[in-house]
């Protein structure tokens, strides 16, 4: 099984095939509906998405003293975010996305063009996912509510399946 580390190398990404299992370590940013809307509506962000990984997830978190702890954090339905994907990739060079249920076929051309890989993780397996999340590095836009905020997470050996590769092949 390939072990990948962020920032992801484009050459490596284009070699991945749909259905392949990998383990991902490094930094990821969560984003779902409200965060995508805000990312697209703003000219500049307080975090950089260049060569980064976006996780379609609204985590269950808990604050202990001053630190945030991830309790359960599986993927949300990516399909719901399909309309944001092309504009997002036009604006920022996002290397990969993690989610569940895949994306609409209309996004495949854009994923191909921008060499962006879609990884999938088992929906509903949020407790198990938290095992691979080492810590919360930062959080942005908490005014959107905890599930819709952007959480910057440090992950270790997160087991994923290549859901949609850069050739437009999909496991769905």
């Amino acid at each position, binding site marked *: 099984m390939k072990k990948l580390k962020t920032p992801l190398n484009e050459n490596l990404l284009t070699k991945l095939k749909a259905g392949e299992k990998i383990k991902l370590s490094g930094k990821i940013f969560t984003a779902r509906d409200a965060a995508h809307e805000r990312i697209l509506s703003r000219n500049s962000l307080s975090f950089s998405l260049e060569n980064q990984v976006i996780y379609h997830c609204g985590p269950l978190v808990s604050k202990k003293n001053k630190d945030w702890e991830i309790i359960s954090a599986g993927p949300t339905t990516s399909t719901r975010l399909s309309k944001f994907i092309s504009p997002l990739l036009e604006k920022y060079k996002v290397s990969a996305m993690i989610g569940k*249920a895949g994306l609409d076929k209309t996004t495949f051309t854009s994923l191909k063009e921008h060499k962006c890989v879609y990884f999938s993780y088992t929906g509903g397996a949020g407790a*198990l996912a938290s095992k691979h999340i080492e810590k919360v590095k930062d959080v942005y836009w908490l005014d959107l*509510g905890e599930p819709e905020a952007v959480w910057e997470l440090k992950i270790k050996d997160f087991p994923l399946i290549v859901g949609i590769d850069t050739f437009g092949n999909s496991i769905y």
Partner: protein
Amino acid sequence: MNDQHSRIVETVVELMKEAQRNLPVWVKKRLEQAKESEEGIAKQEINNMLENVVYSSNRNKPLCQDTGVPIFYIEIGRDFSLKTSIREAIRDGVKKATEEVPLRPSVVHPLSRKNSGDNTGKFVPIINTEIKEGKDLKIKLLPKGAGSENVSHQRMFLPGEKEKIPNWVKKKVKEAGPKPCPPLFLGIGIGGSFDYSSVLSKKALIDFNEKKSPDIRELEEEITKKVNELDIGPMGVGGNTTALGSSIKLASCHTASLPVALNIQCWAFRYSEETIKD
């Protein structure tokens, strides 16, 4: 706050812990059986689900981060003496559970989208009430995530269209594809009215293993079989198991109509119930 109020609050907290952390044994068994009929990625997906079920239970963590909207069905015995507002007690229980379990705050204003932060809001927790014989108070909890609720449907069929129901369910499950986290449980409400068919479809999930008449059993099996022809499979990667079962509830209806509702439930069928003695 009187004793009865506190008892209901504590019961709600315990029900929430149980539902979020421990998948019902019969649900786990169906997943284990389904695993045997799958291979490759589909089998891997069910493996992850089962591994997650053990992990969440051992670590006392909610198995899914989407701890859902709290939906309660309460049965009040006609001789149960009420000494508090059940609605307020359940609401206080949900707030406490949000802190203690913990739960993800997932309840927002429908238009402003502002999150209340404690899983309560206007008419939330959703509470369905029934008055029954006896002197106990029974509280049933079904926390419902959005992935599967978002692809649920209702249709007003014409009176003579009952044969169309299985294929309509199949079509709706096909359209949903991987979105609701299959393999699924299908709650189907037939009859009543536009709104009551939907209530029934969720009650069909709550009373999933209730004894049914042979003709209804047969219809449930036909629907499950048809849906499993779709090859959507676990998490939508293809496979033999798209549905782990169907449950139908009936109500009589107007001679000119046939309301039908389909409430889709993800594999993580979280449920708990408790009886409070008077």
